[in-house]
């Protein structure tokens, strides 16, 4: 019964980050807020895949909000050009978020990033 406080594991869609900078932060997982839904949902990131499509070596930020409201959920992750990174549950702090998860790279060069996140949706 320890699973009482666990959530439902869900994966977000593969999302392309085509532009650099915090103002260009893109939603990579939208928190459930349907009208009439009973309760409030929160999100814990359990897995993260980042594909660097020739965007150069740079930092990728994962958090909530965009522009001036962006807050990092975890420290920025360094991505090497033309590689794929896979962060699993034990790599990621148990940060609980009550907002849609967003991401942005600090640079894209002539490339872009594909990001996919898997979360525990709690509540």
């Amino acid at each position, binding site marked *: 019964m*320890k699973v*009482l*406080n666990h959530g439902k594991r869900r994966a977000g869609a593969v999302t392309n980050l085509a532009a650099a900078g915090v103002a260009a932060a893109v939603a990579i997982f939208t928190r459930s807020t349907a009208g009439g839904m009973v309760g409030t949902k929160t999100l814990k990131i359990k897995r993260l895949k980042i594909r660097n499509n020739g965007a150069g070596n740079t930092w990728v930020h994962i958090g909530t909000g965009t522009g001036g409201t962006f807050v990092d959920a975890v420290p920025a992750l360094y991505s090497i050009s033309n590689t794929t990174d896979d962060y699993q549950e034990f790599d990621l702090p148990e940060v609980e978020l*009550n907002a849609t998860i967003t991401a942005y790279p600090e640079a894209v060069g002539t490339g872009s990033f594909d990001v996919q996140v898997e979360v525990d949706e709690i509540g």
Partner: protein
Amino acid sequence: MGYDLFPHKSGNGGVEPIALIGHNVCVKYSNDNHYRRVIWFEPIPPFQFLDIGAINAGITSNRIQAENLQLWRNEFAQIRWYPLDTAQVRLFLPSADGRYNLKNTQVPIDPTIVDRDPCLHLTEFFVWEDRNPAFEAINYTAVNITTCRLVGMGYRYVTESLPETDISKIKAGTLQCTNIVASGFSGKP
């Protein structure tokens, strides 16, 4: 006649009903004894019955009424519960009457309850009609929390009144009756 059903029963990890259809119960609320017979019941699966909301670090929330746990007339509910977020939560039933009381402490429930009491039998409380409980949460951490969600589960019972002859037999100890406490102690009913 006895039944293997009683309050706060520690089952195989789940919540067992306190009574079945046809069983007699005495719902104790404040100074009243409500002698009733169960005529219908249904399970209430786990659901968020209250979100106390955001609480800053080290702050105690206001006492919030859990109106989602209200019932119709002649009904009572058996509820076990736990908090999802990092807070120590106190139960009041009714609002001015703290529950889980010792002489010097009102015992709170926090998210560790699901490990320490996996079937939640020590959290069980009963609601009579629309006399819902209220909850107060202490954010004991050094960070603000944005939600303070409480999840409950159990059973809802519909009852009918008992004839005086049956109540007399119950008082004489010759007819089965399960006593159910649905409020804090306020003197012998």
